[in-house]
């Protein structure tokens, strides 16, 4: 029983370490922005803590009145995943708004450019009116 427990401990430590290295690599390569990496680093730290502190999960479960400790893992994991998904939806919505604004600007600049190429006068006076009214 004791040897089995040690094996799983080593496996989870290894897994957490590999995960951490993966996250670091992604940040170094510039493929993951720091603000999104924080949550992943936090997750790895928690994984490592529980891999070392074997009695921890059991003790916390008992403290919370959870009789089957693994269910606490599922509960916490699912909760964390849901929170992160909501966060991603927020990020996504923000991106969509930014894309919309950029598209508007781009369409107007395309028009301005083709007007200039066609030798049409730019409506600078009118643009000034709009700014003034703000």
């Amino acid at each position, binding site marked *: 029983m004791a040897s089995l427990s040690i094996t799983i401990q080593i496996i989870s430590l290894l897994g957490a370490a590999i995960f951490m290295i993966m996250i670091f690599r992604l940040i170094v390569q510039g493929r993951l922005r720091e603000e999104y990496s924080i949550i992943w680093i936090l997750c790895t730290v928690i994984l490592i803590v529980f891999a070392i502190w074997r009695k921890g999960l059991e003790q916390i479960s008992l403290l919370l009145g959870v009789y089957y400790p693994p269910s606490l893992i599922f509960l916490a994991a699912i909760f964390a995943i849901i929170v992160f998904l909501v966060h991603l939806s927020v990020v996504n919505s923000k991106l969509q708004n930014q*894309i*919309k604004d950029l*598209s*508007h600007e*781009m*369409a*107007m600049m*395309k*028009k301005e450019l083709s007007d200039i190429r066609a030798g049409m006068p730019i*409506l600078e*006076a*009118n*643009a000034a*009116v*709009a700014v003034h*009214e*703000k």
Partner: protein
Amino acid sequence: METQAITDPRILIVVPCFNEEAAIATVVREINQVKLQFNLRLDILVVNDCSTDSSMAVIRGLNCLYLDLPVNLGIGGAMQAGYKYAYRNGYDIAVQMDGDGQHPANELIKILRPMVEGRGDVIIGSRFLEKAGFQSTALRRIGINYFRRLNFMLIRRAIYDSTSGFRAFNRRTLKIVNTYYPDEYPEPESIVQFGLYNLRIVEVPVTMRERQGGVSSINTGRAVYYMLKVTLGILFVYIRLFNKRVNLTN
């Protein structure tokens, strides 16, 4: 807000266009005829929302201004591009007219008149005030009635044709729309938005036609999604703006 007539207004007709190669040329030509007939200071701005057919090629050959969006934004995003253009370039009035020919150009004057006389900030062309012309399908009218009740509940104003896209905005409205306009199905939601900004919304009877080409953005499969999305949009825009209402009306 004082009732002020606009003298010799500069008008921008915004025509959103998504795959309307069959109808867009006629729409633009008819608007240009009305422009000549009534001697209006009017420009037409077609907003091509990333059409996948040959609409863009057709538009280039027409007597009109155009914006060519680099990505597909949907009707609300396309319209907002047009309204931003109108606001920045100092137009006094912006009118939405669909690119599918549903909104006949000879009805344009009916929408413009109350606007020029300064009777409203938002003028909506309604199919249902005088039950003439194309009345939409029975199922859609049920939906439209539902939005009327919802809008009435929230802003205490009865707008009979809240899904009508045939509408005119003055500069006061353009300033608001310049900063926020709903994306996907903007018509019913924007009415609540305007109501909370205390804009004067005036409905005038117009006759609409059946679309002359292309397909509606709302098919039966999407109807449920449409109702849900718009209801949510209306409720949230209400909650968002209600808290600010005191500041808005000042």
